[in-house]
């Protein structure tokens, strides 16, 4: 039993990483209605920017804020330059665009900062949290920031005019235009916010997985899985999904025989798919009734 509790705790700790990423995934899904495969690379790039700023001598929190602003602007710029022209292209073509973006960012980061892994600092320290060996203060801080972010997003979408306009633009674009909302800019704003949230995820994750151009590969997949599990329409579901995926992954590694590190991912995914087969819109997603 103690093993079980410990593994659940450890799962929550890793789950915080996925929750953070899942939040960014849901954010952009709300804005553009599909998954952005390049999101992990965007987060990785932001994290490198913050690392570079710190190398140049800026203190952590200054680098953090500058990176946030850079990512927000960068997300908007990417949408305006690369994806706005593709608005009318078929969905699968846009997905190909995400893959192209992935390839470009990954390649640039590799050339600029090379592929050696780098230490990344944490502002929370890494001593045991409340005397538990399983959760460090960094991981606790990460969970705290994720929950803070979630609350912030909730208030933004529920109680601000821009938040309302963004939701409207994503839900029924045509009606949104008819009440005077510039839906095209709402999409750009969604990209900006997703990039900013992604950068926070990247900066929180980097102390755990270390900094290198391929650091987000696995994380993004778990982030997707968490978002899908929680229901792509619900930021709350995404965060919960993140924790669940973390727990799934750890328990599978502990209790199912022959599960090496490499089989953890397929097994976690298989579990998620089983959930989806039973509940196709995710645990907290809205069912979409299709009309003929």
């Amino acid at each position, binding site marked *: 039993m103690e093993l079980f509790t410990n593994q659940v705790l450890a799962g929550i700790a890793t789950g915080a990483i996925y929750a953070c990423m899942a939040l960014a995934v849901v954010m952009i899904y709300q804005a553009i209605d599909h998954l952005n495969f390049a999101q992990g690379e965007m987060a990785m790039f932001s994290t490198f920017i913050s690392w570079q700023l710190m190398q140049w001598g800026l203190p952590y929190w200054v680098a953090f804020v500058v990176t946030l602003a850079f990512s927000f602007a960068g997300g908007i710029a990417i949408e305006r330059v690369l994806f706005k*022209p593709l608005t009318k292209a078929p969905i*699968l073509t846009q997905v190909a665009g995400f*893959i*192209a*973006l992935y390839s470009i960012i990954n390649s640039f980061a590799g050339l600029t900062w090379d592929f050696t892994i780098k230490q990344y600092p944490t502002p929370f320290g890494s001593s045991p949290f409340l005397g538990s060996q399983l959760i460090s203060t960094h991981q606790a801080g990460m969970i705290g920031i994720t929950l803070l972010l979630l609350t912030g997003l909730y208030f933004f979408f529920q109680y601000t005019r821009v938040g309302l306009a963004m939701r409207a633009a994503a839900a029924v674009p045509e009606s949104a235009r008819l009440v005077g909302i510039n839906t095209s800019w709402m999409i750009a704003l969604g990209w900006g916010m997703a990039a900013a949230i992604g950068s926070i995820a990247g900066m929180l994750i980097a102390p755990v997985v270390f900094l290198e151009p391929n650091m987000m590969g696995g994380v993004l997949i778990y982030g997707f*899985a968490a978002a899908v599990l929680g229901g792509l329409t619900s930021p709350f579901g995404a965060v919960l999904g993140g924790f669940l995926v973390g727990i799934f992954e750890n328990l599978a590694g502990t209790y199912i025989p022959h599960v090496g590190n490499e089989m953890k991912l397929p097994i976690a995914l298989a579990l998620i798919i089983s959930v989806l087969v039973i509940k196709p819109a995710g645990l907290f997603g809205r069912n979409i009734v299709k009309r003929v």
Partner: protein
Amino acid sequence: MSAVEEIASQTPAVQAVPKRAMTLSAGTAFVIVLLLLVVPLFVKNFIIFQMTMLLIYGLAVLALNILTGGSGQFSLGNSAFYAIGAYTSAILMEQYNVNYALTLPVAGVICFGAGFLFGQPALRLSGVYLALATFALATAMPQILKLGFFEHWTGGVQGLVVTKPDAPFGLPMSQDMWLYYFTLAITIAIYVFSVNLLRSRSGRAFMAIRDNEIAASAMGIDVATYKTLAFGVSAGITGVAGGLGAIAVQFVAPDSYTITLAISLFLGMVVGGVGWLPGSFVGSAFIIFVPNIAEGISKGLSGAVFGVLLFLVIFLVPHGSRQVAMVAQQLLGKLRKN
């Protein structure tokens, strides 16, 4: 959780492509086949090998095209079926001394079965959910192939070396050239089969499901059967391509069949034009040659160059090579009128 169910008028993810627009005219097809027959006689072995690979990946893209362009289901997992096909051929040839030509139908049948089975749970999923499920399959496959349990057959991480067959009946041609013509014959056969499949009753059912699943079931189409059938056929063709690929490359190993392969196939489909079968081979050329070109332009930034080239293609022709073909056809039509 909200109690309300959102009502969305369904817009299919894949654009409707009419049946006729899915294929080539007889004249064009004849010219292309003629070129494919004659060109190898005048080029080096390495180029023949690349042409073989073009046909093989073309088949795999075609298979994905039947699934996505035909029945509207999206798969990132076809690399898994490709792997199963490749390993089936390799194991039969190397462990059981089966003739290479005979291993291909076996690979096809086994993959058809695997695809059909996988199509069952996939029935309840669509869009991003199906993408995630197939993605899981693609990531799991290399790990499964590495498992110690199968090592006796698969050779584990090391993989298996496959011997390249000689030309039969003492024909005076190189191994590469023989394999090319062998592949070409199979490719043409599968292509003709695919065209006919999409023109048949089943093909119409696929497309009805693609365009509007609910309306299709209301018209009495057995949606479940046809969707799993599409998965099966797609996987079967991919399996044959995988078998051919194993013979052509002379080697199978788990890490040749990762998610990267699935993504390549997907890009090939988009560049070729979703739902346009001949485009599969254009897309195949893209995924074989463009990475090399990118590497030629800049070694350090080859990924970035590839991404930029890909962006250029989708900016210029968001509907892939189908769009180019359509424009060309219109121009020809105008020329004829004048």
